[in-house]
């Protein structure tokens, strides 16, 4: 019998390697997998490359991982926030490498890795600093930049409910990067508020089919997490 539900976050994270590329879901704190990040800090993997939308809020979650000095480089769309002081300090001290990726390119590049696309021409960022030295191409009168997939070794995401086959549903705008990161990483680990029996999730309404999810950890509900402001 296949059971992707792990007894603890520590068990689920045990094999994350130094130097791994770790995708971390969430938009600000909505959808951020706090429990899994804490377990990653405890696990000790270092020299990580993190892929996330933001660069941490306050002192918990992703910010705590950064503060612990485990992250060599971060790819994200919006590092600078009113409460991103941990990142800001590391960045100004030259202790972390930053690659700013337009949010749509970030999502689509992660999806491309998951969907087996070798590269794609994106309209976003053409003629800007963020296009860097990438190839450009004019197609039917519009200019595009060639973008490459971003493949994760591990994705840490937060969902609402999951079952032992790895099927997931999310909650409101906490869905954000979860489904594409689940596609784009070799090992996807989801924390969920509720584990349900097989067949309870409506097959018409499953957002992430279990094929994209390798491990699930049940966590306490994230009530009391306050949204942060940009």
């Amino acid at each position, binding site marked *: 019998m296949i059971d992707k539900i792990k007894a603890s976050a520590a068990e689920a994270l045990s094999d994350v390697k130094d130097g791994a590329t770790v995708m971390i879901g969430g*938009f*600000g*704190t*909505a*959808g951020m997998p706090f429990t899994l990040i804490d377990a990653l800090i405890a696990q000790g993997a270092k020299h990580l490359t993190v892929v996330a*939308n933001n660069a941490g809020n306050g002192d918990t979650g992703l910010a705590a991982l950064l503060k612990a000095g485990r992250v060599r480089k971060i790819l994200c*769309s*919006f*590092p*600078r*926030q009113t409460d991103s002081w941990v990142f*800001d300090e590391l*960045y*100004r001290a030259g202790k972390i490498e*930053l690659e*700013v*990726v*337009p*949010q*749509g*390119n*970030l*999502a*689509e590049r*992660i*999806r491309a890795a998951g969907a087996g696309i070798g590269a794609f021409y*994106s*309209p*976003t*960022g*053409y*003629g*800007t*600093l*963020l296009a860097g030295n990438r190839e450009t191409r004019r197609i039917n009168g519009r*200019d595009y930049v060639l973008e490459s997939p971003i493949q994760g070794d591990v994705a840490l995401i937060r969902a609402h409910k999951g079952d032992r086959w790895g099927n997931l549903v*999310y*909650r*409101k*705008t*906490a*869905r*954000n*990067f*979860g*489904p*594409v990161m689940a596609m784009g990483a070799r090992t996807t680990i989801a924390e969920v508020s509720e584990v349900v029996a097989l067949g309870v999730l409506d097959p018409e309404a499953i*957002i992430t089919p279990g094929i994209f999810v390798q491990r699930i950890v049940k966590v306490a509900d*994230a009530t009391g*997490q*306050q*949204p*942060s*402001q*940009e």
Partner: protein
Amino acid sequence: MSATLANLKKLSRNEMAKRVARDIPEGAYVNLGIGLPTLVANFLPEDREVFLHTENGLLGMGPAPKQGEEDPDLINAGKQPVTALPGAAYFHHADSFAMMRGGHLDICVLGAFQVSVTGDLANWHTGEPSAIPAVGGAMDLAIGAKRTFVVMEHLTKAGESKIVPTCTYPLTAKACVARIYTDLAVIDVTPGGLLVRDIVPGLSVSELAGLTKVALADGREPPAGA
């Protein structure tokens, strides 16, 4: 003889937002960015159905929740708590940005540091070496919607025009802006140049051009009966 800036009645932020709202028709799919543009939502008439999109995965966004009813899982792109209207739908980031980049939004309203006479937009980075760059969805929004509106003060605090011959700040996107709403005027970016569509009382188009330091043509409708 000429109006001086000091005694001009500039539009307030709310008045600017209200002026933008006037141009958003029923049934439009609209993204209101973050900051000043989000005020536009407050001035859409209740009987006009407009579909608000927020790039973090919601179409059919409603107003801010009542105090105490905030849900940390239901936020907008500025990470402020919002609500979802009946008929709303949630989706993931790749689908959300497909809506934007695929040209499915009718209108996107953005703030700006600078807009050039050809509609280039600079709104993500001051270019200062000490600034931490952060772009979010700005570049995707700028190129994606059928029409991109900019709403901003006409002049910087130092009195320099934010409408410029060429942007000196790093670009968000080239030739993407369709219309500019400022505290002094509404200006269309057209292949033939900038066209003033509306202007605050007491200011002439030539005076505005003097302040703006770029060529502006008068594109106002003649008053009825003229």
